[in-house]
């Protein structure tokens, strides 16, 4: 029998390939009335960062890394020879509370390999969350990975105690799933996500009517693995757009396929550059907050792939020079949001500021970080880019030198 320390090493290692870390978006609550521990105040907190740049906000572990499934990209697949371990419900509860009391974490993100049956596994996950919530009145964040084949009743129990539920679609295309994760059923995954969206919305409606209506998780998310199959970026973004629209996901996580110990022979030998994952997140951001459609992002891509050299907004702008320069003192919000180097916040400030003064380049540079990038695309009270926008070497001129991304 392994000690808790050994199990933690194995089961944290097994969980790290899930990129999701968010602890935001839960309903606000605290422990003032219950005199227990735990609170969620909207924004999640990253309590530490690992040298891979990822935020550590939750105790992210597997209940067990034994699994019946044989998904080739997964370190826990049945055919892998990694060491196996299994936590008891109580061990996870104690670890969560102990870490939480020391302010190491915002809560728990619990997932599991499939053992015995989907229902059995799901029930174990739910029992951990129920014990935390009911026995310990724990009010911190709980994210449960959901098993699509599990009984809807278990899903309802999970939603009653978790802040977020997630089901990984894993791969952007169904054919790839069939090849790399033969026991996973894409239709069932989608059905489960549809069911969760319905439950979230019904609970929200019911809570509008009465504050005592039973609660249900406030969000769901998913993860797609990038680079384990040959799907190109635009197809990935298309899938993501569809998932956002269909299931109102809080987030789609893109996880560049990473080499794992004891890899399956079916997988590509080359891992995708981490920059690809970064560009996908940027494009995802453009879709969600900047009003870009996948088709527009596509115009800045080459052969279906986002440009690794420049960010997707700049790539788009370089292909649409006819839309520029735009006058910072006059252009509408949607137009300003399309200027490379401008973020939603800086645009908001410019809009507010320009009611009181005519913005000069200096003013703009105070409000946005990427003024160098923005310059050829804007006009201010004292700045005209002239013919800069038509220069053939514009890309080299504005592309950030030495990307701030290691």
């Amino acid at each position, binding site marked *: 029998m392994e000690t808790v320390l050994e199990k933690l090493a194995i089961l944290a290692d097994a969980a790290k390939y899930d990129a999701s870390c968010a602890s935001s978006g839960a309903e606000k609550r605290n422990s003032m009335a219950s005199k227990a521990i735990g609170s969620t105040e909207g924004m999640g907190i990253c309590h530490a960062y690992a040298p891979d740049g990822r935020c550590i906000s939750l105790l992210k572990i597997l209940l067990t890394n034994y699994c019946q499934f044989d998904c080739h990209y997964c370190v826990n697949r049945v055919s892998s020879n990694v060491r196996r371990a299994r936590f008891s419900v109580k061990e996870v509860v104690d670890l969560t509370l102990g870490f939480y009391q020391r302010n190491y974490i915002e809560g728990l993100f619990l997932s599991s390999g499939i053992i015995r049956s989907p229902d059995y596994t799901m029930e174990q996950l739910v029992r951990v969350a129920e014990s935390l919530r009911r026995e310990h009145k724990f009010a911190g964040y709980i994210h449960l990975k959901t098993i699509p084949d599990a009984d809807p009743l278990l899903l309802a129990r999970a939603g009653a105690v978790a802040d977020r539920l997630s089901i990984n679609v894993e791969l952007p295309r169904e054919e790839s799933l069939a090849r790399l994760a*033969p026991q996973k059923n894409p239709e069932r995954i989608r059905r489960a996500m549809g069911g969760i969206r319905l439950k979230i919305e019904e609970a929200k409606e019911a809570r509008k009517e009465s504050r005592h209506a039973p609660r249900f998780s406030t969000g769901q998310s998913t993860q797609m693995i990038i680079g384990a199959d040959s799907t190109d970026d635009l197809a990935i973004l298309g899938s993501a757009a569809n998932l956002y629209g269909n299931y109102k996901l809080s987030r789609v996580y893109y996880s560049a396929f990473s080499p794992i110990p004891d890899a399956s022979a079916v997988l590509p030998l080359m891992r995708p550059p981490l920059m690809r994952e970064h560009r996908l997140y940027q494009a995802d951001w453009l879709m969600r907050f900047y009003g870009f459609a996948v088709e527009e992002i596509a115009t800045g891509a080459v052969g279906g792939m986002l440009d690794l050299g420049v960010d997707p907004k700049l790539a788009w702008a370089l292909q649409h020079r006819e839309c520029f320069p735009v006058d910072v003192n006059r252009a509408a919000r949607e137009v300003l949001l399309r200027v490379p180097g401008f973020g939603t916040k800086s645009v908001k400030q410019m809009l507010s500021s320009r009611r009181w003064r005519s913005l000069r380049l200096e003013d703009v540079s105070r409000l946005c970080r990427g003024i160098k990038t923005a310059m050829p695309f804007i006009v201010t009270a004292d700045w005209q880019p002239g013919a800069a926008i038509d220069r053939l070497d514009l890309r080299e001129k504005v592309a950030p030198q030495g990307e701030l991304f290691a």
Partner: protein
Amino acid sequence: MRLIRLPHETDVAGWRDAARAALLVGEPPEALYWVVGDGAAGDLFEGDEAARTPIVAPKVPRAFITLTETVILHRDPGRFALLYRLLWGLQAQPQLLEDASHPDVHEAEQRAKAIRRDIHKMHAFVRFREVEEPEGAIFIAWFEPDNFIVEAAAPFFMRRFTGMRWSILTPDRCAFWDGNSLRFGEGVSRDQAPTEDRLEALWRIYYANIFNPARLKVAAMTREMPRRYWKNLPEAELIGPLIEAAGERAQAMVAAAPTAPSAHAAAEARRRPVAPIVDADPPQTLAEAKAQAVGCRRCPLWEPATQTVFGEGPASARLMMVGEQPGDREDLAGAPFVGPAGKMLDRALAEAGVPRTEVYLTNAVKHFKFEPRGKFRLHKTPDTGEIAACRFWLETELAFVKPQLTVALGASAAQALLGRKVTIGRERGRVTALPNGEALWVTVHPSYLLRLPDEEAKAREYARFVEDLRGAWAWRATK
């Protein structure tokens, strides 16, 4: 120049009183010099006395008060003067704070942002250590904030760790929670704080193992967790060694040849065969047809949708109702007529005296056709090709259920059943014949009623719809 001494670093009230007094006599910002406690005053030069215009009724917007309360927590000695400059500017330009690119506004916003970040980082990086005391465990942390934020950051810990006794010690101020009240005291030195905790070994193991050596991004880490915090983070001592070993570990993973599956895996594989692909033999029962339709790829509508929404109801039903296609809710729930149009239909059925449980309900097209529009999915009418492709399933359902009467709800359904375009107004409310001679009854789709803009038309059309349903039910009873 006049010297103003504030008793302590975060004295908002003191600053406010002094600033208000200065405004009332019209002292311009350059005439004031602000220090805290017994801080050195520096050289106070005698400037030309500027003309003073007393400001009789100083005004400040609500946003400025909030900004002051935040900015004053900053360690920058220039913050008092900055705030007074803003206050002064606000008297001439009440909307000054909206001018985000104004140098002073910008600077104050930057300071406020630094404070919010500092508070956020304190919430993140405080690490409690458990100490056993006769009256029970107490959790003690040592933290070194950049600014004067202990009072501002402490209530968060109270709300979160209500059920614990805890203290947060810092060089400036300390916060104490005994389970009932929050108190503050003078700063202390680091040696007052405990140096270890029984869970730190576990926490370090967790930190080391959640890190993926194949994705080293040190700059991204230090941007969010700057080095100055490391000395008080128990996990930080691992950072150096983890970074150093990362390259080799990642390479080893790539270099390692794939191993043969374990015996355990082989056993599992035998136990749990891969799910068979749905076979394509003609279905023998309605349930079999439903199962086969799950994997239907006869037209492209399956791809963006969630699932096939097959008909529902008793296979022995004598009445079958056919709608156009599932909508947003039906697509998610996997059952026909559960959304707004379904609710409308339920109401009308009840009013017409038709028990829903005795009706087989289905759609002409089994997948939801939509166009994504921002966060919504807009219903799109299926085209002739899609209706034709999906007729396979509709006919299968008709063949198994063999209803005495089929009701087409709306034009798409009627088209699917009759194989031609249909004008509802001309054919509704009476029995016509399907191509195979069976009986058909045509009426509107309930979603048509939802779309009618004015209430009067809605009521009229609803009554007609109920009449149609009643008529269909009565006709079936005569058979």
